[in-house]
């Protein structure tokens, strides 16, 4: 039982049109707890969610703040639309902090119940600053209006046990367990830089705690560095109008319309209710997009062994609701129940594994050369409970494996681990080493950017090769799409605020498969619109998947089907229905642009955010090695003929690789020029003062930073 270090009573704020009007500040170092007013300026310019996160984070840190300085904050916010129950995907929590991976702000989002329960407990945002003297648990009871900081002795390290313990501890009885949500990391997050945050929710049908993750950028590492073992919120009394919305009839109507679409169309479209995001594995394989063996190729004949059908038939529980917040009929959070573990400290135990998501199967599967579904699920389980960002882990280990394959590092350098592609026993052992803080685990947990330096300096690896094959940009590992043939997506990953992830733009089909955006201007338009549109979900507390993982039956007849116009209108209507404001589709994009540009300037303030920081590694753009070129020789030769007017017959392989590279790198520079121009930035990637003024984001502190770069 924890000792209470601090107790604080508050009057829960009344929610009006999506906002409580108050945010909560907790300094875990000196145990200060303060209530702050959410100002009109915050609502007008930052909206909520990651906008509020970045607003508070900016105020908390200095340009020289490091991720493990006490002043670094973890900020969480749910957004004004968060917590409504009538539409799918409305339970997201947005989290931001200065990242140990990138040294700039990272924002990451998670499902699970924490964000909405935090808001219904009275808080539009939560700031956590300082470092505790001893490990603590922060508990918020939204019904009682009570905040308690307690010592964390005796609690388990790993999330699947820890969250269950805390859910039982703070729930009043068995029925109350659905009203408790826990945020925690896991044992590995103590020893690696890409530790992630688990957000729990209790599944009353399976009688177990389940998780969604705010995984990217090392947020779990920061949580444990602050000696916060867990955050717990409890709120009982969910109903459809806790947000006190302006027009409940409108929200109900749109919600029911969408639920009907899910009922009628999901099976014909993506089957999200059956398999979730992993539905795309074979599609990606077919189009050379499934990252395989560190993105060297875009697929493998063995991919059929990890197809959606394999997981559906052998592992996943079907036919019951699987969403991560109330009202989500897309229900993509799949679960393998009674899954027996074959390795590690929980060997022999039967556990519940959430997933597999697409990123899990592609990252821990094909990208590591692993085509064994049992192994993938076991890796998935341990990543989650140990608090490891699955995407950074997968991409980082794929890099290590290729370094090993190419003789850049030896088995001895890896403490004896035989990290060959496909050796899932070694992958799992590495995870267990991360959990124990032993062997090669902590080094592998540094992430690719830092490992490039270590491998070159310590093991004599070739820095240029490491630079070319290390799939990171800004310090963050790429997510799991092989995108060499989509120039737009190269920009979609590299020309981002927080680093390469699929949160901002996913343009591969539009660009590469359907050829809908052939010119630089069209690609730039897409790299303006989609990142802005998708940023909006992060301001609101919404999930992106319901936007386009199912589309209305007549969507193909609309002017721009890729935008799914009817669903965009749904979002405009829901925003207006909740807040009582009257925005349109153009203002929706404007709302995002303000925060997007603010985040860009925030990067500048932290010493990044310029053109030189937006560069992808060459593996993202084209074939680095001879084998890669040869694997798609016909395609690359054809491009030499058609795009450059060269005769591949008269060139040797190395020459062909070199001229292909030169051409592709030039294309990326031209794309960058076009995108910066469209976004209202200088050629160096700095938002212009005119653009900031036009957006109404020429705040004095923003202008002051920008002026240094103009």
């Amino acid at each position, binding site marked *: 039982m924890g000792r209470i270090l601090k107790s604080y009573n508050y009057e829960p704020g009344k929610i009006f049109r999506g906002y409580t009007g108050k945010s909560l500040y907790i300094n875990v170092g000196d145990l200060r707890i303060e209530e702050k007013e959410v100002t009109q300026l915050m609502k007008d310019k930052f909206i909520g969610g990651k906008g509020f996160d970045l607003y508070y984070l900016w105020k908390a840190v200095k340009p020289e703040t490091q991720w493990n300085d006490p002043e670094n904050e973890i900020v969480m916010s749910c957004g004004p639309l968060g917590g409504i*129950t*009538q539409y799918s995907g409305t339970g997201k929590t947005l989290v931001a902090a200065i990242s140990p991976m990138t040294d700039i702000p990272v924002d990451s989002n998670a499902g699970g119940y924490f964000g909405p329960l935090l808001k219904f407990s009275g808080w539009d945002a939560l700031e956590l600053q300082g470092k505790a003297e001893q490990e603590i648990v922060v508990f918020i009871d939204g019904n009682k209006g009570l905040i308690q900081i307690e010592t964390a002795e005796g609690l388990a390290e790993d999330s699947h046990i820890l969250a269950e313990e805390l859910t039982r501890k703070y729930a009043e009885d068995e029925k109350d367990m659905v009203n408790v949500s826990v945020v925690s990391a896991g044992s590995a997050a103590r020893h690696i830089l890409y530790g992630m945050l688990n957000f729990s929710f209790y599944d*009353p*049908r399976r009688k177990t705690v389940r998780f969604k993750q705010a995984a990217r950028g090392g947020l779990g590492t920061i949580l444990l560095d602050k000696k916060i073992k867990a955050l717990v919120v409890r709120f009982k009394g*969910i*109903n*459809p*109008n806790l947000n006190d919305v302006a027009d*409940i*009839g409108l929200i*109900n109507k749109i*919600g*029911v*319309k*969408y*639920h*009907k679409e*899910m*009922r009628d169309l999901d099976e014909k479209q993506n089957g999200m209710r059956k398999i979730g995001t992993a539905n795309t594995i074979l599609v990606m394989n077919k189009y050379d997009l499934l990252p395989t063996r560190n993105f060297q190729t875009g697929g493998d004949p063995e991919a059929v062994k990890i197809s959606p059908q394999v997981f559906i038939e052998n592992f996943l529980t079907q*036919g*019951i*609701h699987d*969403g991560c*917040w*109330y*009202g*989500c*009929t897309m*229900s993509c959070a799949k679960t393998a129940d009674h899954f027996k573990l074959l390795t590690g400290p929980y060997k022999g135990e039967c556990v519940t594994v959430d997933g597999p998501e697409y990123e899990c199967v592609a990252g821990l599967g094909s990208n590591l050369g692993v085509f064994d579904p049992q192994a993938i699920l076991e890796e998935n389980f341990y990543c989650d409970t140990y608090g490891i960002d699955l995407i950074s882990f997968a991409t980082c280990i794929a890099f290590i494996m290729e370094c090993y394959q190419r003789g850049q590092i030896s088995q001895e350098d890896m403490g004896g681990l035989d990290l060959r592609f496909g050796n899932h026993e070694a992958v799992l052992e590495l995870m267990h080493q991360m959990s124990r803080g032993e062997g090669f685990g902590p080094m592998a947990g540094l992430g690719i950017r830092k490992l490039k330096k270590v491998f070159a300096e310590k093991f004599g690896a070739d820095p240029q090769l490491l630079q070319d094959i290390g799939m990171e940009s800004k310090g963050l590992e790429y997510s799991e799409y092989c995108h060499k043939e989509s120039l737009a997506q190269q920009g979609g990953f590299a020309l981002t605020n927080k680093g390469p992830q699929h949160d901002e733009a996913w343009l591969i089909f539009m660009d590469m498969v359907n050829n809908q955006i052939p010119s630089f201007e069209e690609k730039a338009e897409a790299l303006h619109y989609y990142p802005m549109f998708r940023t909006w979900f992060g301001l609101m507390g919404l999930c992106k998947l319901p936007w386009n993982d199912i589309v209305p039956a007549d969507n193909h007849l609309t002017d721009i089907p890729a935008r799914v116009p009817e669903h965009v209108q749904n979002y405009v209507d829901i925003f207006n229905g909740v807040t009582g404001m009257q925005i349109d589709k153009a203002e929706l994009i404007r709302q995002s642009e303000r925060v997007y540009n603010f985040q860009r300037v925030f990067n500048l303030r932290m010493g990044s955010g310029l053109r030189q920081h937006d560069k992808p590694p060459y593996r993202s753009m084209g074939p680095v090695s001879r084998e890669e070129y040869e694997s798609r020789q016909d395609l690359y030769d054809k491009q030499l003929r058609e795009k450059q007017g060269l005769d591949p017959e008269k060139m040797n392989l190395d020459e062909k690789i070199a001229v292909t590279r030169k051409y592709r790198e030039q294309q990326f520079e031209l794309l960058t020029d076009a995108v910066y121009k469209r976004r209202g930035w200088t050629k160096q990637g700095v938002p212009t003062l005119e653009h900031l003024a036009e957006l109404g984001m020429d705040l004095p502190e923003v202008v002051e930073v920008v002026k240094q770069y103009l």
Partner: protein
Amino acid sequence: MKALHHKQEICDGCRECEKACSKAYFKREDRDYSAIRITNNFNTFHAVMCTQCGECINMCTANAIYRDKNDVVRIDKELCVGCLGCVGFCTELAMHYMDDLMVPFKCIACGICVKKCPEHALVILSSQA
């Protein structure tokens, strides 16, 4: 399993059942608040009402729908969060909501409408679930 059945060939579309239902549960005579809805298709009357199929039980996002001891499908108002997922998913269009209510409503085979039907076109039948 208890369920309400409608004899289409007898029904004359008087809609007394709708009034009885809405009055019993919402104290008003308003078909929008009735769990049974009679539709008129060229003077053939069809009743829209729950068949107690239970498809909504597993899809409920709050685990709030269950079968009672008579195998009738019921909504637990304490657990229901008003997401209206069941309204959208019901293939019979027999799950209803109104904007001033916090939870949806449906036919629970109570038999009130059966007693009020002047033509005896409604009957509660029991069968194996």
